[in-house]
């Protein structure tokens, strides 16, 4: 074979290879075009609480998913902390930082044809800010003094003082306040059962304990979103049943925090796991107002007797991160004086205390609650502390926790990216939400400081100070960081972003 022909053949083979590789790469990497149609069935852990902020009080994980499909926020927030316009166009702070002017989007209507405008935004926010209405999470928006209408499509938020977390208060999807409902639904007092917003999907029906169905909004203002015909949200409290429903095909997506299911799903090629880390933590609250937990030495001893790592391995099969502070990696506070598992130190502190320690812990009557309780009971026994376990239904546990009727109780710190307002609510001496009755002037000063200052570095320093003091004083024990898991069939697309456990169905589509 002469060299010319050989070169030509080589060139031709190379060209063929390049064509094949290009097509393979395109097939693998290029984002597929969303397909329209189909019904997505989502398995949730709990029944929905309702959608009126004044009646449902707070958004559970299940409610967040529904409200995100039906109602919209003024802004979303990206991973870098920038506001991303939704129903608003822009947000501009005043020079003194004590007010924000927000321009609203024109030409948007609620599902009941009520126009979206400044009146809708003002009436919603003022309803929540009015102390007479006793909005459950008013502590989280307390620095907002009032909301005024500037013109038909402009509103102004007046603050009591410059407030760094304001952008989060406008966008955090775990907060009821950020979702703008139809003023007509509020007026007619139907919002709690029939959520009406401007979102990509419209409420169709809610059959208690069975399903909540939403259908595509044909007039949705954002073109190219809402690909599904409908979405069915189904409460399935039994985790094994929920996982089985995914495997057998009745559900397309489920939410879970059970380690065994997540590990099992990892081995199943037909399933995809999506995770999202955030602030907050699972924790065990101490009631610091009653003996023996009013003595810091006892709490510190229990913190050294506790082995969070063991809990995460045994109960969650390593699917949750270790928590040393409430910031979930969003702020780097280093070690935060975290008290490591050290039974010898625990025994020494208990010996200093000098009296026998007998305690009772409330936990949920769920498998995770029982397992955590039993691990704690065994670890405390090793250092000579008797722990009696009291399993309770979720509602009773919350009630006793809120009412201060506990010595130790299983608890959850909400999953905010901006933890300042929640920490202030939970740890300030005079706060009604300080369920552990923790009192420390040093902590109060740090909490006020983090709220008042705008400089990010100084603020972070103050927040890290709070985290350190939590561990030094052993205000509570950590039971793992907040990490959300969603397991989906491989054919479910567009749900990569599950921040705060929310499946954003506006982007979801089915590749079936």
């Amino acid at each position: 074979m002469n060299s010319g022909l050989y070169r030509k053949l080589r060139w031709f083979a190379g060209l063929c290879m390049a064509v094949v590789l290009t097509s393979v790469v395109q097939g693998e990497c290029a984002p597929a075009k969303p397909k329209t149609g189909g019904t997505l069935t989502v398995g949730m852990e709990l029944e929905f609480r309702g959608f009126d902020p004044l009646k449902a009080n707070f958004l559970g994980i299940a409610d967040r998913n529904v409200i995100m499909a039906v109602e919209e926020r003024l802004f979303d927030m990206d991973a870098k902390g920038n506001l991303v316009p939704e129903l608003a166009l822009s947000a501009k702070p005043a020079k003194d930082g004590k007010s924000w002017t927000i321009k609203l989007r024109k030409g948007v209507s609620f599902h009941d044809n009520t126009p979206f405008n400044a009146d809708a935004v003002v009436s919603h926010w003022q309803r929540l800010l009015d102390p007479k209405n006793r909005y459950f999470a008013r502590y989280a928006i307390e620095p907002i003094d009032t909301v005024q209408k500037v013109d038909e499509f402009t509103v102004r938020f007046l603050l009591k003082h410059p407030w760094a977390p304001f952008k989060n208060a406008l966008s955090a999807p775990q907060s009821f306040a950020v979702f703008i409902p139809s003023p007509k639904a509020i007026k007619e007092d139907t919002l709690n059962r029939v959520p009406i917003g401007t979102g990509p999907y419209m409420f169709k029906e809610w059959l208690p304990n069975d399903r909540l169905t939403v259908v595509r909004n044909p007039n949705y203002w954002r073109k190219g979103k809402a690909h599904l015909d409908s979405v069915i949200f189904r409460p399935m409290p039994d985790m094994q049943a929920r996982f089985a429903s995914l495997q057998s095909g009745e559900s397309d997506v489920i939410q879970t925090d059970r380690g065994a299911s997540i590990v099992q799903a990892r081995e199943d090629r037909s399933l995809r796991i999506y995770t999202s880390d955030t602030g907050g933590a699972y924790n065990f609250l101490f009631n610091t107002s009653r003996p023996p937990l009013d003595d810091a030495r006892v709490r510190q001893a229990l913190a050294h007797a506790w082995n969070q790592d063991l809990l995460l391995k045994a109960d969650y099969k390593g699917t949750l991160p270790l928590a040393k502070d409430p910031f979930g990696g969003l702020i780097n506070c280093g070690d935060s004086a975290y008290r490591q598992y050290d039974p010898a130190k625990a025994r020494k502190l208990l010996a200093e205390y000098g009296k026998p320690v007998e305690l009772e812990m409330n936990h949920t009557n769920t498998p995770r609650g029982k397992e955590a309780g039993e691990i704690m009971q065994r670890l405390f026994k090793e250092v000579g502390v008797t722990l009696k376990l009291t399993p309770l239904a979720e509602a009773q546990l919350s009630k006793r926790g809120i009412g201060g009727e506990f010595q130790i109780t299983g608890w959850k710190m909400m999953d905010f990216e901006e933890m300042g307002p929640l920490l202030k609510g939970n740890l300030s001496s005079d706060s009604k939400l300080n369920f552990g009755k923790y009192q420390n002037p040093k902590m109060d000063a740090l909490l006020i400081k983090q709220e008042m200052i705008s400089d990010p570095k100084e603020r972070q320093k103050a927040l890290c100070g709070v985290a350190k003091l939590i561990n030094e004083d052993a205000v509570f024990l950590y039971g793992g960081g907040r990490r959300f898991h969603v397991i989906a069939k491989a054919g479910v697309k567009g749900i990569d972003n599950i921040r705060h456990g929310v499946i954003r169905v506006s982007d979801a589509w089915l590749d079936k």
Partner: protein
Amino acid sequence: MVFGRAATVVWKKLLHLLLVVLAVTLLTFVMTDRLPADIAAEISGRGATAADLAEVRERLGLNRPVLIRYASWLGDVCLGRLGNSLATELPVKESLRSHLPVTLELLFLSQLFALLLALPAGIITAWRAGSRLDRLTGTFAFACASLPNYVLAMGMVMLFSLKFKLLPATGYTPLSAGLAANLKGFLLPALAIALVEWVILMRVLRTDLIATLKEDYILLARCKGVPAWRILLVHALRPSLFTFITVLGMQTASLIGGAVIIETIFALPGIGRLLVNAIFAQDYPLIQGTVLLITLAYVLINFLVDLCYGLLDPRLRKVADNG
């Protein structure tokens, strides 16, 4: 004349059952009242003042004595008003109406499956008592009875839903979406209940049938050359059904609010789940309404069972007629 006496007996029974309903609902009312929870605080939300709580208690009538509140509730019930759920604000009647069909269908299918298993098995094992077939059936029956129904349920889900993909693992499809889809969703939960229930039915039927087959009139029928199937089904079965019917009635009644585990595993929106959720939420109008429904169903089924006795044995009707 005879009809009049029968009517009197029925009225007496109904009156007795009414007293049962009153007693149960009063007891539930008192127990709900004694729950260690403050419903006013629940409704008022965090941060409520004493005045707020008093206002809510006044509005809901919670500051009245429990007996007065019970009488008021009873009066409303007589007018067909069950009130609204505190948690969902839906009328209690509507909640019951949406959950009852699920429970009734589950109950009907599970009892049908239990009967289909228990009747032939009971008859055959009584006729062939002590045989290998009797022993085999007994072993299978005890194996079923010794497994809790949730274990059976999970096992069936693994087999029929996950391995063979024949039936759905969870969920309820309303009849309006098609009979086949609806029945598919109920097969596993109904079987999970039936596989435990049929054992008791089979055992009581077998025992009673064996006793009946030793009666003199059965011996006479055999001597007269009456075919075996006729002796069993016509002469022996009917008088052997008393305990069977009683147990069937009790089982059916207990399933109205008692299938909560199966309803939870299969995510069925039935009365059991409704009641448990209402208790957890301390939603007392819904608790009262659900308990009332369960009690009414219980007494009604037992009333029907009592009437069945008369149908099964005409001698009982005569005893009743004679006072």
